[in-house]
Structure formats: C-alpha cells, structure tokens
C-alpha cells in the first residue's frame, strides 16, 4: 500500500498556498472552540496526519444531513472532502455505483480496519424488511462496518435519537445507532439537520487530536452542544422584559419580540444555532422569526405541536395544555367539594335531630 498523503500535502496538491492552509487551520481552531495559541497544534496535526478514511452510511434518512454537510463554510466542504478525509463510500457523493461501490466499502473494512470513521445518517430499522441495500439488511451492514471502525459519528437526529422514522407508533421499529453498538466509541451530532460547521468540526477534531472530542452525558460533543439556544438567543432581552409575539402577524412579530408564546423550544434545546448560525453565519430560525422547534432534542417529533407550548404526560406520547387541564381538574375538585360540603351539613343536621328525638 502506498504511503498516504498528509492533509497538508493534499492541500498543496490541490493548488492551495501555504498561506491558505494556515488560514484554514486558524479558522478551524476557532470553530473547534480552541484558543488562538492552540492553532499551532492544529497546523502541526494537519502537516503530519494522513487523511482519514470515512465510510458514510445512509439508512432511514432524507439525505438532509448530507445536504447540510456539503454547505460547510469553515472549514470549506471541498477542503474537508479533498484534504482531510478520504470519503471511501457514500451513496450521495461517490462516483461508482452498484457492485463497485459495495466493493469499495468491503475494501475499507479490509485495508483500514480500526482506522476509519463511520459516519451514519438515518435511523436503523429493527425489522430488516424495511431497509435492505445491495441485498444486505441495514442492521447487518451497520454492525459489520461498526465493528471495525475507529469511531462512529451519528449525524442527525435520526441516527442519534431515532428521528422522524421513530415517531409514534414507529412502524419500522426505527432505532438510533447507540442501541446497536456498545463497544465502538460513538459521537452523537443531533440536529435536523445538524449545523454544517458542527458536522465538519467533529471530523476535524478527530483528525487534529486523534481522539473523540469531549462528550456530554448524552454523547454529544460539548464544544457544540453545551449551551441552550435560549441562553444565547438574540431575542433573549425581550423574554426577560416580558415582551412576546402572540401571533405571527402582530406588532410584536414585526418588532422582533420573543417567540416563547408561539411555541419556541429554545429553552429546552441544546445546540449552537444561536452562536454559529447557519449558512456561514447568516441567520438561524429564531433570528428569522420562526420559533425553534428543538430539532436536535430527543423526541422532538413526539413532543406536541411546534407552535404552542404544551406539557407531556410523563411516560406517554400525549401532550396537553397543562394550565387548561390543571384548571379543569381543580374546578372539578371544587365542584365536588361543594357537593360534599352540602352533604356534610345535611347529614349533621339530620344526625343532630335524631339525637334530640332520642333524649
């Protein structure tokens, strides 16, 4: 096997200057949440590390995550695809198809066992009948490729939590990757889709440091999922002031008030939308006037309508308006109490009377 090119060599080969390369490394360090002094570490890693083989598997998905990935601005998608990683198998981007494509996947398993990164997009059905690619069930393909992978990167809410396919009543038995593998280290990058820079940033981190980024209790990289949208929101001042959009066509909506009352899930959503924003930092849903619906949170698809605030009855898929239900229950109790009180008074009067008769 011939010697692999380093990321730096690959960049120079593609006509980038050293200056461009350093600029890319500095920007990458910033995207990874590193200090400026640490960008040297990134440069060193890119000069010495070879490109990482990546196998990108798609299961029950909509290709939205791939679409997001190819819109990364920092690092640029082409530099990720051409310099940092060597995309060995991808249903969307690879030139070969059919048996050729399937063969290249098997080649990776043989040549790069324990070295390649397995990117997974989409949930995996428990019932094989729902998804079979090239004559092999999704579950079998995944388990085969997961066993030899250095790490699994679960892109999107489907592969991280189950996603849309797992919505109640979940006909295909869709499950996240974590319910199939336990031994291979797994990073969850939820979002529907995840932010492009987050997707590339995770891979860049693995290349730079040779290990997984620091993960939170759910397995998401802390660098990108440690903050709530609500705490970084550009409309937060209106929340604290008690100024809310009541309808999408009212004055508050024009003024840019807080979208809390029209169902914004920012207070319960962990993602970097409010800091990194989308499409190269242009905007993000809340900035554009649409409430966040928490696409990177587990079960967001079953947590009730997007544009109202509701509460879920724990342990069920049912969401209710807690205040209406609470008021109804308290009202019923008050009515019951009134009847009971009347009964008590009548019974006491009757008993007292009977007592007098006995005397």
């Amino acid at each position, binding site marked *: 096997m011939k010697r692999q090119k380093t990321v730096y060599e690959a960049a120079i080969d593609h006509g980038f200057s050293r200056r461009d390369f350093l600029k890319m490394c500095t920007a990458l360090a910033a995207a990874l949440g590193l200090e400026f002094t640490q960008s040297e570490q990134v440069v060193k890693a890119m000069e010495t590390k070879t490109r990482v083989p990546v196998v990108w598997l798609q299961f029950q998905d909509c290709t939205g995550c791939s679409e997001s990935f190819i819109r990364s601005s920092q690092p640029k998608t082409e530099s990720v695809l051409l310099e940092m990683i060597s995309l060995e198998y991808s249903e969307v981007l690879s030139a070969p198809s059919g048996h050729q494509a399937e063969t290249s996947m098997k080649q990776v398993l043989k040549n790069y066992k324990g070295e390649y990164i397995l990117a997974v997009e989409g949930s995996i059905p428990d019932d094989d009948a729902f998804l079979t690619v090239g004559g092999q069930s999704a579950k079998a393909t995944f388990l085969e490729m997961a066993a030899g992978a250095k790490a699994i990167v679960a892109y999107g809410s489907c592969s991280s939590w189950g996603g849309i396919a797992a919505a109640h009543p979940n006909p295909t038995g869709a499950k996240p990757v974590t319910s199939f593998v336990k031994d291979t280290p797994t990073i969850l990058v939820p979002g529907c889709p995840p932010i492009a820079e987050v997707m590339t940033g995770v891979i860049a981190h693995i290349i730079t440091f040779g290990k997984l980024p620091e993960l*939170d*209790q759910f397995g998401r990289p802390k660098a990108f999922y*440690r*903050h*709530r949208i609500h*705490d970084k929101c550009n409309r937060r*001042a*209106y*929340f*604290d*002031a*008690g*100024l*809310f959009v009541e309808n999408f066509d009212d*004055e*508050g909506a024009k*003024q840019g008030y807080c979208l*809390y*009352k029209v169902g914004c*899930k920012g*207070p*319960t*959503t*962990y993602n970097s939308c409010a800091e990194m924003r989308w499409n190269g930092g242009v905007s993000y849903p809340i900035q554009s006037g649409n409430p966040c619906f*928490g696409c990177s*949170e*587990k*079960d967001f698809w079953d*947590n009730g309508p997007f544009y109202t*605030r509701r*509460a*879920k*009855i*724990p342990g069920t898929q049912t969401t209710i308006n*807690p*205040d209406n*239900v*609470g008021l109804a*229950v*308290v009202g019923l*109790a*008050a009515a019951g*109490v009134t009847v*009971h*009180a009347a*009964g*008590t*008074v009548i*019974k*006491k009067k009757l*008993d*007292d009377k*009977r*007592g*007098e008769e*006995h*005397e």
Partner: protein
Amino acid sequence: MGAPKLPIQTPGPFPEIPAINSENSYHKDEPIIYTTMENDVKVYVWELPVRLYHWINAAAIILLMVTGIYIGKPFAGAGIPEEAYYSNLMGWARYIHFFTAFVFTAAFLYRMYWCFVGNKFAKFNPFRWVFWKDTFHTIKFYLFLKNKKPHFVGHNPLALLSYWIFNYLGSVIVILTGFFMYFEPQKETIWAKMFAWVPYIFGNSFTMRSWHHLTAWAFMLFIVLHVYLAFRDDYLERCGSISSLFTGYKTEPKKAVGEKHDK
C-alpha cells in the same frame, strides 16, 4: 365513632385508655401531654416549627404558582410596543420564583428534619396494619358510610398519606426538577453537577418541565381538598382545628386521650 358526636353519648366515665388507633399506638413512650378543662382537655399538638413550616409553605406555594404560571405562559405584557430595556417583567417573575423556591426548599428540609425530632404528631409510620385499617375507616367516613373511625388528636391517617403523596413527594419532584432547570445554563458548576443525575429519572429538558408544571397543578388540587377537609373537620369535631394552626393547641374530648396521663 361516627362523624358527628351524638348527644346521646353522655360524657364520662372516661375509659382508662382510649381505643387503640394508629395515632396513640405509635410512640407510646411519648404520651400526649394535655391540660384538663371541664369535660375537655387542651392538647399542644402543632409545635412552632410545624406551624411555621405550614404557613411558609402555604405562602411559598401560592407565590410560586402565580409566578410559575406566568413563566410557563406569560399572561401579561406591555400593552404598547416598546423596547426591551423599559421593563423586566419576566425577569422579576423568575427572580421571585427562584427566591421563593429557595425558601420553599429550606422550609421543606427543616420539616423533614422535624419528622425525626418533633413530637408524635409530627411523625409518620405507615408500616403498621392499624394505620391502613384507620385509613380505610377514614375513607368510609368521608364517603358518609358507616365507619369505625377513631378520633385523632393530630392528623388522621388519610390526611397524613395525602401530605406524603401530594406535599412531600410533590415537593421532592418540583425541587429536584426545579433545581436542575435552575442550574441548567451553568452545566460546569458544582451546583449543576449535584443535580446532573436528575435527567436519568425525569427525562430530558422538555419532559422535566412537564413534570414540574403538572406537579404544580397537583399542589393546587391538594390545596382545594386540604383546605376544605380542614374546615370540615373544624365544623364537625369542634376541636379548634383551624385556630390550632396559629396557636398550636387543640381542644379535645377527654376520651380521645384517656385519663391515664391526667395530672
């Protein structure tokens, strides 16, 4: 003894020991201390910490509910369009909610401590057959059925159960979920780490808020039943239930405590 005290039962002679019930059979070493009046006795039932807890808790629940409803669904706001820097309505609602939450938690912890060191009316032991027998008769009493509910100087067992389920368990749920949410934005702090295990029981942020919100309404349901039954008890038993919440003393018929400890 039935719900109303029938006048045909002439007072005295009082039994040496009142019939065994879940109250006087628990902590026999702590006799009920009372001062005798004509046919009645005055009993010190609610100690000062218990009364303080009761009223601090009640005030805190009301304040927490009002601010909590506002936080969950802001029902008021500026009538005219204005900039954010003129008002801080949600900010204040949250501030009051959080401040009261700390008071609520402190009062709750103190009450839990008093379960160990307080008098026998401040304690609770459901692991006895007689407790559940008395509970059953109390339910029958509330349903206007023929019953053998003994007279209780302190809480009746059904009331005790309702406090443990609605009030204490409810408090634990709102305190745990509440503090998790309070420290949620500062995940790296020691405070947040103290509550980092809460999601394993109550689920993610959204489900956590649902628990918090629905439990708050359970408190409201409890208040309706609790206040009604307290006044009902005062009306039927005439032993000063309501005033005892301020003074601590209840006026009981002698036969409820027996003459054993008469001085």
